[in-house]
């Protein structure tokens, strides 16, 4: 071998450094974030009653024509409560409609939360039996889907929308979707 001895002795060190680097990178990954296969696909067809009026239907048609954020939440979900204030702030912003999907919850409890802490949603679908949740691949709350004007799911935020998620992912994406027209 042409390599000098001193270089050869460095090989284990380099291999170790590479492995350590890989493991450190792995520590920063969140295994709970399962990428959704629905990104880039149209929203599943569905029809749900709304939380406020059981006779009024909320369907996939409500997600067309406007850019939407679909926020999956429940009254029993503490992370959703933490997220609530940012949702209230988001509801003031132009350019998209904020839709709620009340998931595996009790209507009375859900309504109480909205009555006490405010209702940021344009519309809330009521899905106590996880019918639409399964179709959307929901596996926890909160989750937020970004849906474009054509009704295509463009992004899924797993966990609460915090400042980082908003500034790095959601806001740029929403601007882009609005620019797409």
């Amino acid at each position, binding site marked *: 071998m042409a390599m000098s001895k001193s270089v050869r002795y460095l090989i284990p060190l380099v291999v170790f450094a590479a492995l350590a680097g890989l493991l450190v990178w792995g520590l920063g990954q969140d*295994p*709970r974030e*399962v*990428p*959704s*296969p*629905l990104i880039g696909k149209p929203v599943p067809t569905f029809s749900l009653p709304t939380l406020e009026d059981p006779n009024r239907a909320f369907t996939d048609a409500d997600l067309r024509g406007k850019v939407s954020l679909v926020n999956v939440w429940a009254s029993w979900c503490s992370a959703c409560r933490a997220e609530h204030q940012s949702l209230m702030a988001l509801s003031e912003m132009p350019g998209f409609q904020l839709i709620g999907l009340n998931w*595996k919850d009790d209507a009375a409890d859900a309504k109480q939360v909205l009555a006490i802490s405010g209702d940021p949603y344009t519309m809330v679908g009521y899905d106590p*039996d*996880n019918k639409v*949740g*399964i*179709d*959307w*691949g929901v*596996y*926890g709350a909160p989750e937020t889907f970004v849906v474009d004007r054509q009704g295509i799911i463009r992004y899924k935020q797993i966990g609460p929308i915090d400042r980082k998620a908003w500034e790095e992912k959601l806001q740029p994406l929403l601007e882009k979707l609005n620019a797409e027209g």
Partner: protein
Amino acid sequence: MSPLIKTLLIAAVLLFGTAASAFTLEEFQFDSPAQEQQFRTLIGKLRCLVCQNESLAASQAELAQDLRNEVYRMMRAGKSQSEIIDYLVARYGDFVLYDPPLRPSTYVLWFGPFVIILIAGFFMLRAILNRKPGADDAISDADRERLQALLGADAAGPSATGSLPGGEPKQPT
């Protein structure tokens, strides 16, 4: 607290513990034991997304319960195993499968270990083939003298080497 009460408490904990961890198949009705077996096999292959190292069969998470119901409903509706699996994969991704499918994105996962074994085998083979025969036997004259001096240090002659394996230093007689 008397030992008896303690024992009873432990027994109660164990009893409830089992009751809680035993997944209740009773709520599902099957036409035949074969169908029940099929259902069990299927939910054993699917991963719960909430408690990620548990199968749908083992998990007590509510989502797992919902998905078990869904699998059951689809089975009763006459859907085949692969149809049910495709349905869940379309919604939750390959992650719901305990067995990752073979496709370009998982080639590293499936073939990586064999590639590493091949590379390691190549280097090992080369190291063995490159080894010079007798290289280990070559000692310089100075080393040989030193070795003999050490071996013979506690005795008058080279015959004393016989005492070495014993471990204990031989006392000079």
